[in-house]
């Protein structure tokens, strides 16, 4: 089950690893509310790793910690052996909302990262202009985000994340708000882009099909407090097109993810809502 036959580098240095990550918040009565409980996961160089879990289970908290925005109570986040917890700017982070800034043109929005890090304007402007076409944004350089459709906004947000020029990308349900058709088109497009750019990607989703289609490995999390419920290795060949969704292998993998999700669903229903009180829903 854990043997990897993927077309990507395997058995190599771990690019990103999360070890025994634990974090709790306090509920409105000041009682500790555990969110993450001993999360272990790793993503190898240029791997696409999906994280699937029920909504509100703490996936976004996990990303906030990996991105260095939030400190864990215990545990570590290693990138190439270096602990990067609490140091923002080590990875590029795309949040659920596109967070395009209304007052900036698309070109100014996608180049926010290099602008903040003080890179000279002409250099990053040119880099961005070259990529605009690849991201289907050509001709919209001087437009404000209000002129864009939902799919274009997501692509602009992704381009902004890519232009941060980090080896690791965290994508938090980037296509969650899109309709099914746009979403399917975005999946193929994203894989296409990823083949070219070759980054390590951590991808949060609650859609098992999306997870299987995109990733090399899937971590299924339990509901709050989040633990790793199971790991599914996806050994589907790359490059992948939509036809792969009809294959038996795809169906079996999707089934395995769904089994884990359903098992968890049933367990959390039996144990009642006691652990789900409070208003810490962060995704």
């Amino acid at each position, binding site marked *: 089950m854990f043997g990897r036959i993927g077309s990507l580098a395997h058995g190599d240095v771990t690019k990103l690893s999360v070890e025994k990550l634990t974090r709790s918040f306090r509920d409105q009565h000041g009682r500790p509310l555990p969110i993450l409980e001993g999360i272990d996961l790793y993503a190898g160089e240029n791997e696409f790793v999906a994280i699937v879990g029920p909504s509100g289970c703490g996936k976004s908290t996990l990303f906030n910690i990996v*991105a260095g925005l939030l400190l864990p109570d215990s545990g570590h986040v290693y990138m190439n052996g270096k602990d990067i917890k609490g140091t923002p700017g080590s*990875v590029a982070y795309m949040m659920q*909302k596109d967070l395009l800034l*209304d007052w900036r043109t698309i070109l100014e929005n996608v180049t926010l990262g290099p602008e903040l890090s003080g890179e000279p304007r002409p250099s990053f402007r040119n880099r961005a202009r070259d990529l605009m076409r690849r991201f289907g944004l050509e*001709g919209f350089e001087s437009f404000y985000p209000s002129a*864009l459709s939902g799919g*274009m906004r997501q692509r602009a947000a992704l381009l902004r994340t890519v232009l941060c020029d980090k080896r690791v990308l965290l994508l938090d349900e980037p296509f969650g708000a899109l309709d099914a058709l746009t979403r399917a*088109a975005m999946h193929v497009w994203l894989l296409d882009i990823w083949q070219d750019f070759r980054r390590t990607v951590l991808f949060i989703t609650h859609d098992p099909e999306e997870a299987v289609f995109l990733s090399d490995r899937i971590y299924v999390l339990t509901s709050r407090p989040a633990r790793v419920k199971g790991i599914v290795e996806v050994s589907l060949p790359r490059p992948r097109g939509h036809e792969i969704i009809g294959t038996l292998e795809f169906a079996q993998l999707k089934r395995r993810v769904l089994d884990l999700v359903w098992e968890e669903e049933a367990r959390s229903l039996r144990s009642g809502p006691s652990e789900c009180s409070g208003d810490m829903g962060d995704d």
Partner: protein
Amino acid sequence: MALVQPRDGSPKRPDEGLLVPALIFIGVLATWEILTRLLEIKPYLLPSPVLIVQTVLADWPTLFSNYRVTLSEILLGFVLAFVVAMALGIMIAHSSAFRRGVYPLIIASQTVPMIAVAPVLIIWFGYNIIPRVLVTALIAFFPLTVTTVTGFNAVEDDEVNLFRSMNGTRTQIFFKLSLPTALPFIFAGLKVSATLCVIGATVGEWIGADRGLGHLIVLDTAQFDTPRVFASILLLSISGVALFLIVSLFERIALPWRHGKQAPDYRSLFLPWRHFYASRTAATIPKKEV
């Protein structure tokens, strides 16, 4: 009758929105003029619009020397209100201690009638421009402070996290995120403050002044020189409208994203063929995909 044909997609031109109010205004003036003539209303009761304009022209030297004083009070008060409101607004929005400790006091201070405070200010600062500017600023700073606080609070946590994830400094977050988010709110407050400044300066002069249009209104009322009272009112309201329009103009320049889908190309404003230029860029809007 279609007075104005809105062009598809293009942002509204400023003159389109002014046509109807202008027509109503002219209609009111005409009715006023005709009624005062037909009913032979005495000028000291209600002067006709024509008489008011004649008074402005005839008494221009007196009016203007007083107007200059009032106008400087309005402008100084406006600037002072702006500076104070920005400082307070930023501190309240960024410090919870300030928000809890000072904001309620500022709100409570609005229950103090400024007309009652003005004489005290004269006792403190003397018979000069300072108390009048202070009254103007005191009346005008409050709405601007409230909108400034609202504006800075409109920044979302996720947006701050976006900047932090890109290693943005506090200064960068302030100038590239908080300030642009707050600007539309600040301009809304500035428009309210601009009109309040005219009221503030006039009230300040009623309480105690030896010059200014407010002072002149008090003198002229005592002498039943109603046409000149109206002449002063005309000048004051023109100043209020002008200040409002100037703020609106700055707003348009500072917030181009509120008025169109595309960043304006300011170079084209300086070209004589800018209309051609504008229509051409509008025609080449690329098609949305996906």
